[in-house]
């Protein structure tokens, strides 16, 4: 890929911790081609910071050796990369057929009313956000959801209440 990015090769500002920076460097030689390090590097950035900023994209572009626009194209293609901050507890509810057949919409409706936000929004205190996601591959425990990287089987609205309680209490 061509260069030409703002942070091409320079260490202008490194928007991640030294540890993350080191781990990204290690990624650059993990795969047969350096280009493959892009998705894992973005995961590392998001693991640390919770989302991917313009600054982070430019920084990663410089590390991999691709243009910042290229990284923007990749980040925007994959739904797991957040381009804006999400809540401390990012609740992702499955909206695909099997979960809907088993009452997934009722679960989301309960979450919406309890948290006072719509899918795509963050609560004002920054603690919760909601998102509709597509099939999570857990149709046997439908309706299902994920909170950050943890699976939850939300079988009904009552369980949704219990989930919010648990998260509010930090459990």
């Amino acid at each position: 890929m061509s260069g030409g990015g703002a942070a091409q090769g320079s260490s202008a500002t490194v928007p991640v911790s030294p540890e993350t920076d080191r781990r990204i460097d290690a990624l650059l030689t993990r795969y047969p081609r350096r280009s493959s390090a892009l998705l894992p590097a973005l995961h590392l950035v998001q693991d640390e910071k919770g989302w991917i900023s313009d600054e982070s994209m430019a920084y990663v572009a410089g590390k991999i050796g691709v243009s910042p626009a290229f990284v923007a194209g990749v980040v925007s293609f994959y739904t797991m990369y957040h381009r804006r901050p999400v809540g401390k507890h990012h609740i992702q509810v499955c909206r695909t057929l099997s979960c809907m057949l088993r009452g997934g919409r009722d679960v989301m409706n309960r979450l919406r009313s309890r948290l006072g936000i719509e899918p795509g929004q963050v609560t004002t205190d920054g603690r919760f956000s909601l998102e509709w996601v597509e099939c999570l591959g857990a149709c046997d425990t439908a309706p299902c959801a994920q909170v950050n990287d943890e699976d939850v089987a939300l079988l009904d609205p009552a369980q949704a209440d219990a989930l919010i309680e648990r998260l509010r209490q930090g459990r």
Partner: protein
Amino acid sequence: MPEPNVPVPAPEAPPPAAAGPAPAPPQPALPPCGPDEVALLIDGRPVVAKKGTTVLQAAGTIGVVVPHYCYHPGLSVAGNCRMCLVEIEKVPKLQIGCATQVAQGMVVKTTTDRVKDTREGIMEFLLINHPLDCPICDQAGECRLQQYSAEYGKGRSRFVEEKIHHDKRVPIGARVTFDGERCIKCTRCVRFCDEVSRTGELTLVDRGGHAIIDTFPGMALDNAYSGNTVDICPVGALTWKPFRFAARVWFLKNVPSVCGACARGCSVDLATYQNRVHRITPRHNPEVNGWWMCDFGRQTYAPVQDMPRLARPIVRPAPGGAGGPGGTAGGGAAPSMGEAIDQAAAILRAAATRHGAGALAALVSARLTLEEMHLAKKALAAAGIARLVVPPHEEGQDDDLLIRKDRTPNGRGAGLLGLGAPDAAAVAALAADVAARKVRGLVILGEDPAGDGLIRAEALRTLDALVVVDWRASATVEAAHVALPSCGYGESEGVYVNCTGHAQRTRAAVRPGGLAVPVWSILREIGRRFGLGGAHSSAPAIFDDIAATVPAFAGMSYRALGEAGAPVKGA
């Protein structure tokens, strides 16, 4: 993810090779072909093509047009528009012509009902989210959506819901505007920035129906070749800012010519209407510029339109009362061209008489054509002027694509005609000699040394004879005793030789105003005042003279140069 259309051949079948499907049984009337070629049928007509050619390309060689958007011969194959789907016998699904390689005995059909129905479908899909902008869109008249709608479309849409909306006037670059709703995501622009300019500013963001072209936040499409994305955009999504709303393309007349902005000499088209050039676009020339040109060259016509123009000859009193018959003003307040040229000859003669021929010199521009340079040499020789200096005009560096730091289109030509290559040291020496009053008479052809800071205007004013031929009302013209108005870029024809020794014809696209005439005709007249013979009646005739008398150009002619030009063998 299911893969239902992965082919399931019998286990003994060979793997699907890259060169297209299995050959058909022998067809009648397939022509013989060489070891690197295949013979196939396209719409019943036999074609011979080199291995590796695509069906779309092969069809083009026999005049069968396979409609397409995303394919461009100067870029990699994307295969995403699906407009070029054609039928290939024995293959169940239609195949894209832009990516399917020809194979021996292949039978291709582009006019079947199935193909027509498919094209209709693709057109419908492209239009369901496309805004009805034709009345305000620059692309109208050269838009593939319009063209293919008329040729292949349904004529009406079945889409009744709200279209997807995007920003419509995105200042994506300094010279390029982007309309997200018109975009059909063919990715030609992205591929151009990745593969040709290698600057990578553009990308598709998001996916599915919301996928759209964008730059990195805060960054712009600002490479020196951004205008090419406008040329290759098949619709009006990318538009060239200087040309936005300027003229309807069906009024424009394209005149093939050569760019004058640097020594590359890209082949161009000057689009004219009502005696104005409205835009310059690259003309395909595999010998010079391929498909492309730089952004600066696109604006070459602007100075001719914008700068103050020398419209009529000027005659001013020369010092020491030198001058021809009729007194100091020579010919009165509004001299004719003939009168002004008489005066020019007179003051040059007078200066030579007074100070010797060695005190005369000439600045000859590398922006002149071969014909102009040829006559300059003859006329100046007839006038006894031996010291000829060609000023360089350099800016920046050669890049690895088209742009040359030499910003003159015919420096190579100057060298080939024996005028010498552009030489900064010679210019400096001349300036010093003017300041030291060793040079007393100067003929300046197409240069503005005062404005360019090469020779100070005060120094020029000390000359006994300053004759200037130019199209601009420049600072040098202000100091001249005689100023003769000439054609500017795009107003007369002639030949340039570019940095690789390739000669091309420029053509007159517009008529100059006032009394301006081609430089070569002025030089011929000056020469005649000094006894120069020869008809030199037109640019082609002068070029024939060059071919006859300058060994490097032996055998060349305007006809031989044609549209794409030809290499100068002696270069």
